[in-house]
């Protein structure tokens, strides 16, 4: 890793803190992922990506920058990667998945705030996220109250922060707003990249991102099999890497893995012992390296067969249509596609509940774990009336509320084990 020290110091990282972070990450990755039994060979690619997540990938970004490409960081699935690729930019998800430097974050943010937001600030202020330091532009978005107010606070700390406004209702006015915002975002991207969005480059962006989505949807489809050919942890990891990796290389790697899984399924080979219970996890996004709850679930006798999450099917299930022949048509298609995302900031948000029920059936699950990050009001509130509705549909639900700390693992494990006992009958 030390081969990157020069690059990291040029990026302004705090090398000592960064080394400490990488060492903790490496250990937990080893304990959580490498101890799984009978993993597919195709996971080696993702192990490699994770081992180089702050190294080789950052070097690739830096090399691309010297060729004039722009690196654009984002925190949310409402920011269209198609547009970024159209101006020859590189889109990267920014670090927000670990309890790092919360004391720093809490000097400028309230303590009672969701861990994801505090983590983004912890990484930035602690100077340990090479992605944000490599960014030419950081894109925020007005999703929840926490995030939209936090971007005001983040603004002076980053080179260039651009915030996309988002609607809160699935109305015509809401859709018009979203389209307006995407048009403004296009202008911003054209300005910083010096490149004009054309039908051809935007179409190329759509094709690249659609191919990436199709690959993860293909992976999702294979998880329907019994025995289950890949763990929920590995599948989550792939959905997390979705936000960092070169999109074309990622797509090829996921497809190669899927080819291997097809063979496994033919041979009747799985990664869990017989009798492992199938569950769906739904709720707040799990950014790298937030593997706490899936690890607890999959070491307690259950297998996760689907994620109803931004880092999962909520973020990837719709493709962008390619109909039309002008930039305007394609922007319309992009707006249609992103407007379908059923984030809990929308009110009402019926389609999310329908999607949960549909996933439960499709993946032949026995239970649903609703994952809430503490202080994430939109998802916590939704989980209440969703639970009541799901009960009427005979879908057993366990609501968990937690943060990025490790101190509640014992209590979470008790709840998860009891839930698994309950759905096993």
């Amino acid at each position, binding site marked *: 890793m030390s081969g990157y020290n020069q690059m990291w110091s040029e990026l302004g990282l705090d090398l000592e803190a960064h080394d400490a972070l990488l060492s903790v990450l490496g250990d937990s990755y080893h304990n959580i992922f490498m101890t799984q039994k009978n993993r597919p060979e195709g996971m080696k690619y993702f192990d490699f990506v994770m081992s180089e997540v702050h190294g080789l990938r950052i070097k690739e970004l830096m090399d691309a920058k010297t060729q004039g490409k722009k690196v654009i960081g984002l925190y949310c699935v409402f920011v269209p990667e198609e547009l970024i690729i159209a101006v020859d930019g590189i889109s990267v998800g920014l670090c927000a998945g670990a309890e790092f430097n919360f004391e720093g974050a809490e000097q400028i943010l309230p303590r009672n705030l969701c861990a994801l937001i505090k983590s983004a600030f912890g990484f930035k202020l602690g100077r340990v996220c090479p992605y944000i330091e490599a960014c030419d532009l950081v894109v925020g978005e007005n999703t929840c109250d926490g995030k939209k107010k936090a971007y005001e606070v983040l603004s002076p700390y980053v080179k260039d922060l651009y915030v996309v406004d988002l609607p809160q209702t699935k109305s015509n006015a809401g859709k018009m707003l979203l389209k307006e915002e995407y048009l403004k975002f296009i202008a911003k991207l054209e300005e910083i990249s010096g490149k004009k969005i054309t039908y051809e480059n935007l179409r190329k962006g759509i094709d690249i991102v659609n191919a990436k989505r199709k690959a993860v949807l293909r992976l999702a489809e294979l998880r329907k099999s019994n025995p289950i050919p890949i763990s929920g942890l590995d599948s989550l990891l792939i959905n997390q890497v979705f936000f960092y990796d070169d999109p074309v290389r990622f797509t090829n790697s996921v497809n190669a893995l899927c080819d291997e899984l097809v063979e496994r399924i033919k041979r009747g080979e799985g990664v869990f012992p017989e009798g492992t219970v199938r569950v769906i996890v739904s709720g707040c996004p799990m950014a790298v390296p937030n593997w706490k709850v899936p690890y607890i679930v999959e070491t307690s006798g259950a297998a996760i067969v689907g994620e109803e999450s931004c880092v999962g099917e909520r973020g990837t299930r719709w493709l962008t249509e390619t109909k039309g022949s002008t930039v305007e048509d394609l922007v319309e298609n992009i707006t249609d596609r992103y407007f379908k995302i059923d984030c809990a900031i929308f009110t009402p948000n019926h389609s999310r509940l329908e999607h949960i029920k549909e996933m439960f059936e499709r993946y032949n699950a026995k239970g649903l774990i609703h994952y809430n990050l503490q202080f994430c009001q939109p998802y916590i509130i939704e989980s209440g009336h969703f639970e009541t509705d799901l009960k009427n549909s005979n879908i057993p639900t366990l609501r968990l*509320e937690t943060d990025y700390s490790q101190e509640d693992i014992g209590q979470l494990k*008790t709840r998860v084990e*009891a839930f698994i006992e309950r759905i096993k*009958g």
Partner: protein
Amino acid sequence: MKIAGLDIGSRTVKLVVMDGSKILLAKKVLNSHDPLNTVFTLLDGASYDYMVATGYGRHLINEVFSCTIISEIKAFALGSRAVYPSCRAVLDIGGQDTKAIHINEKGKIVKFEMNDKCAAGTGRFLEIMAHALNYSNIDEFSKAACTATKAQTINNMCTVFAESEVISLISRGAKREEVALGIHRAIVSRTLRLLNRVAPSGDVVFAGGVALNECARKLISEELKRPVFVPPDPQIIGAYGAALYGQNKR
């Protein structure tokens, strides 16, 4: 076949050994900094063929003994139903956890919830408050609370803040037993909110160490408008449930 049920709680460790439907042995000891050693002490002299462990220390035990483990939720549901077949709701207040469990007429767990990660409203909370009021033990604290005719209001459920609140009430001249009653009221009302949300109807079994507390028992029976049954030894229900589970498995 002799089946042992072991419940390793945060404050006490409980053991029940059964042969068929007969309880051969039921005993408990206070837990320590070394739970494994506590378990060895408790198991000393006990003979059994098969063991089922539950409680927060279940995984620790599983690494040392050959045994089956089940969650406390399942253990308390099984144990409660065995001592009181019509029970549809279980309230267990232990040393560091409060659990509310809703079971259906077939004994299946329909829903359960536990308190958050802190000790608010648990047995440990009561111990710390008893100490803050200079009572020498929980029994004395509970009995004193029962003698009060009115209760001081306690607003904080955080153990640390509640302790300061108690001290400031005393320094303002509040009667000790009225504060004691206020503390019991506070945890009972918090606990019943949890229970009524999870299991809003049906007969209740009240178990766990706090069910030994006379004042908590009295307040819970008064405020719940439905039958409440407290087992003769409410602390061993988890260990008993674990032993019953082992019996059905074998």
